[in-house]
């Protein structure tokens, strides 16, 4: 079964500093990878996704992630964070070989990013 490990449960940073949120997955097959953001008391918003092609994926709000198949990682980065980036970030994986419909997402436990002034 697939699983996702987000290595840091909380990441505090200062405004305008760079940040990296780490994600590792376990799967023996090709996967699709996603990062979602959840602001307090809201649903999930897609930041970016990797389906195929270039391993460097750019998303919304200046975020990017790099797919590393050999290390089974999909770390999220932003060169300069803002106060408004304070939120919970979830890494997710899906199996493109599944049957019917769309493929279920398996989520990590989340990383709470706090940006301080």
């Amino acid at each position, binding site marked *: 079964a697939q699983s996702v490990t987000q290595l840091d449960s909380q990441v505090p940073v200062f405004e305008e500093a760079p940040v990296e949120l780490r994600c590792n997955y376990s799967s023996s097959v090709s996967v699709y990878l996603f990062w979602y953001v959840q602001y307090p008391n809201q649903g999930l918003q897609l930041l970016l996704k990797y389906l195929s092609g270039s391993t460097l994926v750019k998303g919304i709000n200046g975020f990017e992630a790099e797919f590393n198949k050999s290390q089974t990682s999909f770390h999220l980065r932003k060169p300069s964070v803002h106060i408004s980036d304070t939120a919970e970030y*979830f890494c997710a994986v899906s199996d493109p070989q599944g049957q019917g419909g*769309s*493929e279920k997402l398996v989520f990590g*436990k989340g990383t709470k990013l706090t940006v301080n002034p």
Partner: protein
Amino acid sequence: DAGVTQSPTHLIKTRGQQVTLRCSPKSGHDTVSWYQQALGQGPQFIFQYYEEEERQRGNFPDRFSGHQFPNYSSELNVNALLLGDSALYLCASSLRGPGTQYFGPGTRLLVL
């Protein structure tokens, strides 16, 4: 273009009761998935509906059931509520096949 909508936004029930949550998918989407997000955890997959049939199911008991209507909207039903069912219930819609699931704002259920 309306995104995924869910109702109600909040709900309070007591143990043993039954609850129905509703979801309308994003325009043009035909697949609906439901997730449970307990406090401080990532979302857990409950089940997915496509063509009015349950296509995939996560590790949830039969107390959790669902339905998809011809207009692609969906309901999640939970019977015999337990305290542990308290969570944020998220609906996601997508098109059949690989790709992106778009999430609604969720329904927060509190079981007392």
